[in-house]
């Protein structure tokens, strides 16, 4: 093992990192766009409830409040699932780069121990 071969090996190992990152971050963005759409929908329903309260006072219940609340909770839950997927994707990207970095740091440590690389 020498510095040149470690560098060559590392470059080979990370050759796909660009594509992986582009893909993962693209997927995160697509999911985020979906999430924003869902959020807009449940916020609109929430606004309906609050508009009714403003017009009729807080003691009167919106005729469809139960139904609206149910739908809002459903959409929030869907958003949460989407967000959990995004977290997994972000953690995957982090893991991929951390794995390569860790391997490189370990190899650098070995080269330094062998005196093949200045500390």
């Amino acid at each position, binding site marked *: 093992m020498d510095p040149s071969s470690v560098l060559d090996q590392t470059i080979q190992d990370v050759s796909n990192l660009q594509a992986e990152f582009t893909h993962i971050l693209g997927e995160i963005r697509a999911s985020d766009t979906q999430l924003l759409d869902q959020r807009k929908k449940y916020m609109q329903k929430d606004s309906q409830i609050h508009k009714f309260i403003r017009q009729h006072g807080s003691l009167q219940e919106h005729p469809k409040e139960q139904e609206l609340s149910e739908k809002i909770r459903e959409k929030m839950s869907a958003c949460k699932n989407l967000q959990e997927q995004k*977290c997994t994707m*972000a953690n995957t990207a982090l893991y991929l780069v951390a794995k390569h970095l860790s391997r490189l740091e370990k190899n650098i440590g070995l080269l330094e121990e062998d005196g093949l690389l200045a500390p």
Partner: protein
Amino acid sequence: ELEHAKDMALLVARREKVTLDLLEQNMRIFDQRSNVKRLKRSLGIRG
């Protein structure tokens, strides 16, 4: 290069975690508001 990429990937992972926390917080707030409204109505509290 890898350290920079890792730093940014870590920031993105943190951002997504905070977004998840925000969503959960919004769900909590929605439920709490519903409970407050229900109690206000039963107690006849206006405003």
